[in-house]
């Protein structure tokens, strides 16, 4: 939402949606679906889950419209619902994945399947697909909360305050998450820097 006219248009759609107008709500979905999908994807790291959670986000928003007090923008409110849904899913997944090998349970997560045990030495050379896999593996090793903070900052360009509202956290928590997420990414991908 940039100018006053688009804000007024959104306010009109919001009002009609609150009165039960699904056509107006459909237009609100169209306005924000891409951003919500991208945000969820960056946390759950899976297209199918991101698609499902995007739908869930809008459905939850529809059900909670009477409670929306306009304290934040609609997008920020949707982002908060999306973040909660995505983090919940990641937590559920973390509890679930267990594989039995030789009778003993082995805890596994998505990152451990793709993260190399040792990084390539500087000068080994790394092609584009490998680089992408390395970046994804490192990013997957962050906690969902850290992934949310980094993606809202670096991909969506949100301010600390906006991230705090979108993740229902304090300003200090946001800065702390950014700090530790960056530190971890730098340590996991240190050799990439040397490689260049």
């Amino acid at each position: 939402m940039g100018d006053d006219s688009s804000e007024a248009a959104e306010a009109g759609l919001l009002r009609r949606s609150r009165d039960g107008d699904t056509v107006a709500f459909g237009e609100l979905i169209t306005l924000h679906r891409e951003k919500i999908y991208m945000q969820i994807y960056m946390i759950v790291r899976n297209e199918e889950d991101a698609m499902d959670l995007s739908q869930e986000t809008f459905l939850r928003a529809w059900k909670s419209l009477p409670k929306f007090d306009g304290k934040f923008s609609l997008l920020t409110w949707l982002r908060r619902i999306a973040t909660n849904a995505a983090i919940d899913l990641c937590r559920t997944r973390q509890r679930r994945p267990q594989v039995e090998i030789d009778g003993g349970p082995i805890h596994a997560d998505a990152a451990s399947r793709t993260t190399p045990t040792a990084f390539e030495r500087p000068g080994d050379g790394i092609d584009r697909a490998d680089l992408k896999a390395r970046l994804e593996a490192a990013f997957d090793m962050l906690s969902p909360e850290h992934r949310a903070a980094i993606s809202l900052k670096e991909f969506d360009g949100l301010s600390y305050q906006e991230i705090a509202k979108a993740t229902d956290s304090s300003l200090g928590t946001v800065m702390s998450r950014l700090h530790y997420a960056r530190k971890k990414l730098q340590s996991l991908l240190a050799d990439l820097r040397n490689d260049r």
Partner: protein
Amino acid sequence: MTDKTHDFTQWLDGKLPPAQAARFEADPEALAEREAWNQLRPTLVAGLAPPPLLHPDFINTKVLEAIERDRKPSRPAGNSLLRRLVFAGLASISTAAVITLIFLPDSFRRPSESEFISQVISARAGNPKVSVSSFHTQDDRGVVIWIEGTKPIPASELVR
């Protein structure tokens, strides 16, 4: 989490006022970290870009379908209430009927055949010239023994 860490994060993002930023600008370790992040950041952003949303309208369709599904049961709320009331009424009547049948005193029930004054199992006569038959009349609640070919029954036999 200390204020220094908060400040460092803001400094890394170029959000720290110059007066506060001076201490980091003079710290080689902080400068090295900033340089490292500034090198890694574009690689991360380029390499981790989310895939495009291929079928965006699918989200609208599914959400609106779900909303319609949720709305349907609430529409015929009146009918549903009426149906529930009728069902509850019928259930109550059935229960009352069963209880009545179980606890109704025997005297109120329809009398069975065994409650007649007498019941003739078989009727035969020793004399071949005499025929005996019996039947009972449900309306009169009695049994008739029909004897043909004999003289009037002796008074001594009437009692039996």
